[in-house]
């Protein structure tokens, strides 16, 4: 695109079906930087 550069391809809406397993670390990592193998 000429006027817009997109930094990422992740879409949060795609994590609804695969998310919620709960195996991720407790955050207070913060939620913002946490990595999850299951919801990529």
């Amino acid at each position, binding site marked *: *695109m*000429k*006027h*817009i*550069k*997109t*930094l*990422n*391809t*992740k*879409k*949060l*809406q795609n*994590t*609804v079906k*695969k*998310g*919620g*397993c*709960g*195996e*991720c*670390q*407790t*955050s*207070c*990592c*913060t*939620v*913002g*930087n*946490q*990595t*999850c193998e*299951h*919801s*990529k």
Partner: protein
Amino acid sequence: MVHQYKNNGYNIVLDVNSGAVHVVDDVVYDALPLFEDHTQSEIESCLRGKYPLEEIREAVTEISQLKEAEALFTPDEYEGYIEEFTNRPTVVKALCLHIAHDCNLACRYCFAQEGEYHGKRELMSFETGKAALDFLIANSGNRRNLEVDFFGGEPTLNFQVVKDLTAYGREQEKLHNKKFRFTLTTNGVLLNEDIMEFANREMSNVVLSIDGRKEVNDKMRPFPNGTGSYDLIVPKFLELAGKRNQENYYVRGTYTHHNLDFSKDVLHLADLGFRQISVEPVVAPPEADYAIQEDDLPALYEQYDLLAKEMVSRQKSGNGFTFFHFMIDLEGGPCVAKRLSGCGSGTEYLAVTPWGDLYPCHQFVGNERFLMGNVRDGVTNTKIRDEFKGCSVYTKEKCRNCFARFYCSGGCAANSYNFHGNIQDAYDIGCALQKKRIECAIMIKAALADCDSF
């Protein structure tokens, strides 16, 4: 919902509900606020005096394409899903063990009040700690990864119990198909070769408390006799960080009203050689002389901007470091359920006092209204658990329409309670700083992705 802002010369656009982040030129930046409730011709007439018509049309076309691709103006369809998610049966997956309600420092801002948590000095016995680990295993359901924080007070005052509980955990994890992730938080006063060797072998993460420059640290983190702790702890922390290959630790400081120029403390820690750094705002009663006040916010925003620019510069010259509050994963972060339901305090995460009482998290320890039970009888006050379980960003008025909700998760329940008397509110100064940090963190990503020109 779209959040757009300018930072360090970048026009940044966050599509809140998809998490997509865009760097845009001026014409798109000006067209975006008009896009949802103006026609194409209205947008053209609004912007025609400022940009060539052809450019306006290109910009609107690109915005439309991204909306079609669900990367702009994505609707929020999570509220019903999160309500369902927060009603699920929960298990316990993490405990904060208060190994010692005692401390060898007298930090002025400590919420634990010299480690005593509004109560008496006491060390956790091995038997109580063992009962806590048994409680965690028994209440963790099918969850395999479990976390145990050795916390205080100062846990190295009771380090044999830390060692014994770690050994017990390693035995039990084999029997129950669990995996313990242990962490240690220390002020460093008692750090020695033995503790370092043990921590580097068994602790997945170590938090080392230091506030930054010597005069800043020693003003707020003195020994009970008033002398400072900086000179004693810095060499030990550097040795420990080096032995951990500069990974899986944080030097963690607190800034206050007395050092509003805290970016200098962050950079001081980086210049000492630390690579994993967190320096965070104090949360204190407003009447405390060191409390952050609303009037301090503009100066603090400026500090975060200065720090973000310096971090970009250092990263580009191969001398970067990690700043906890600027860490943001735009590609692989957690699922929506995790993002919107918060830290899990009171449900998945509990704090254990030296005598085995259970509280929603370490910040609530000592407040009897939040006593939930004990490690031998389990959670007996399920009303408190249900109160915490019901929390999500959609149950908090201040959070439900906030652009930061997927990166903040509704803030800290303890801060909300301390400032507003309930856990469904939000600590306003904390919110303002969190939003600023998220904006800076995204700017750093843009700068490192070389989005400098169009």
